């Protein structure tokens, strides 16, 4: 397990370094340069030159890349050209909002999707199973930002049950929770469908295996067979999916933040894109990539912990 863990960490670091190099190369090949983009068309050549020097853009490209990689490794994502604040601080102020939203969305999806998938597998081919199947595909097909807009229309504008915008009053957890309901519903709905389908498919596979047949022959109650023996194995593909799913989930969270005017990485990145704030954009993107590498690594390690066969080959 130790060797597997070390190999997996190495792979995650390598992927991060390549992703950083890709992002750096993108910035380097842009027409004009980041300083001109940040300062806009009215900037004088002197202003551009000063900013280029401050951002280190006057140095040779390989040196710039190495400096960039070194700075990121020490947690320095640069300085926001507009507010002069460190990008790391700005990104980490916004990040908790996004992570809480993503976790809430995924949380309710797991709570509903996994039992639904289990139930469908046990009651296979019943009308309820078929209905769950159709509803799951329907939920998967609904783009999360359309769900977000429609939920604002129905639950905030028409019925007035939930607030339409904001993240709630600071220091009032109940109010914040109230503001979290609609965005979490919007980003979790598709995942309910995904998880229900995935768990159903893996449960059907596992329920036909020999150890389940043996357990049944021993006369164990169905509930014990399903929850103690079948689900434990059937959940493995779901754990892997949850690691990989982070990218999609974060993208949905970004949209939900914009629709519901909530603070977070999405709002930050959109504002940076609109003002062409290049350092903040780079910082926000890099942090999301690091989190992706981290979550897929954790998912792989959890699967390896649960399934010894995985550890034998990376």
């Amino acid at each position, binding site marked *: 397990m130790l060797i597997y863990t070390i190999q997996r960490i190495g792979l995650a670091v390598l992927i991060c370094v390549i992703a950083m190099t*890709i992002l750096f190369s*993108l910035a380097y090949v842009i027409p004009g340069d980041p300083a001109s983009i940040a300062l806009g068309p009215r900037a004088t050549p002197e202003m551009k030159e000063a900013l280029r020097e401050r951002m280190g853009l006057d140095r040779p490209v390989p040196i710039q890349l190495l400096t960039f990689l070194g700075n990121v490794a020490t947690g320095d994502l640069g300085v926001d050209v507009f507010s002069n604040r460190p990008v790391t601080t700005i990104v980490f102020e916004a990040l908790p909002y996004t992570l809480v939203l993503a976790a809430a969305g995924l949380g309710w999806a797991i709570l509903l999707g996994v039992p639904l998938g289990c139930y469908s597998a046990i009651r296979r081919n019943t009308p309820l199973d078929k209905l769950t199947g159709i509803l799951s595909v329907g939920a998967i*097909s609904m783009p999360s930002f359309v769900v977000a*807009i429609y939920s604002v229309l129905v639950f905030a504008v028409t019925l007035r049950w939930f607030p339409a915008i904001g993240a709630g009053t600071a220091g009032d957890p109940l109010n914040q929770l109230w503001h979290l309901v609609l965005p979490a519903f919007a980003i979790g709905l598709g995942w309910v469908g995904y998880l229900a389908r995935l768990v159903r498919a893996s449960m059907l596979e596992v329920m036909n295996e020999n150890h389940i047949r043996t357990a049944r022959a021993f006369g164990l109650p169905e509930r014990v067979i399903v929850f103690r023996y079948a689900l434990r194995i059937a959940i493995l593909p779901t754990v892997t999916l949850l690691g990989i799913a982070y*990218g*999609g989930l974060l*993208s949905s969270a970004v*949209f939900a933040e914009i629709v519901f005017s909530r603070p977070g990485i999405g709002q930050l990145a959109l504002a940076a894109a609109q003002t062409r704030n290049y350092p903040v954009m780079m910082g926000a993107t890099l942090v999301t990539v690091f989190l*992706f590498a981290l979550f897929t690594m954790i998912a792989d390690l959890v699967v390896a912990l649960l399934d010894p066969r995985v550890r034998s080959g990376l």
Partner: protein
Amino acid sequence: MSAPASDLVPTPDRRAELGGGPGVIRQIARDPMGLLGLTLALLLVITGLFADWLTPYDPLKIDVINRFAGPSLAHPLGTDNLGRDLLSRVIAGSRIALIVAFCTTFLAMVGGLVLGLMAGYGPRWLDNGLILLFDAVYSFPYIMLALAVITLFGSSLTMVVLVIAITTLPAYARLVRTSTLSVKNSEFVLAERSLGAGPVRILFRHIMPNIIGPLLIIVSMDIPVVITVEAGLSFLGLGVPPPAPSWGRILNEGYSFIRQTPWVVVAGGLPLILATLGFTFLGEALRDIFDPKLRKRG
């Protein structure tokens, strides 16, 4: 989720059983969900292709006096904040969705095919290098990469197509790689190699026909994702520039006036849901046909 690539490669017997194009369509039509998917997908394609003839009004024509009109015989989906006919805008938007979907999936498919074949058939070092590259690109959440690229290069239809193609390419390349690995040591490839065939001939004459089927299924299942991403970027104001009536832009404009009228967001969202639903059902039906193992299990 999706079946392993090797499972999706139809055996010659299976292909004969399916009987080519019309056979597949007959099989899809037998499944009610598949038929619904095929109908919705065809509807989008036909609407997109003949958008110029189908729009009752000019989608860009402003008529401020009739702004925020509800559905009526004259305007079946109502009008937006500038009095533009929403049905005409939705129909014109289907062409944008169609162009982006097909250009993007075609680019990603060709790129994924070439890189996947290289990784699967090439030397070990190339395979390892390309896999790392695919994983690194895949680690960018698409919306963040889109925002980063558009921050640097500005937004345009080409940029939207490129960004979505780059983010979807790694998944295709990985699928092609896995299929290539499973086919490259089969007897007919070994026989061809022993007869002195070069790698280009083996790859394009023998390996590619065997992996193009599963790739096309995955691509057809990705069309709704691509349409959604384009609409999402346009919703954020980063997609196709105005006044082009992309579905995402209609949603964006409708969302600003959601308290005045619900019809604009309803009109912008419904075609998006129907299109994604249609292609998803169609993709599912295709996968069931080409992967009988899954069908039996279901």
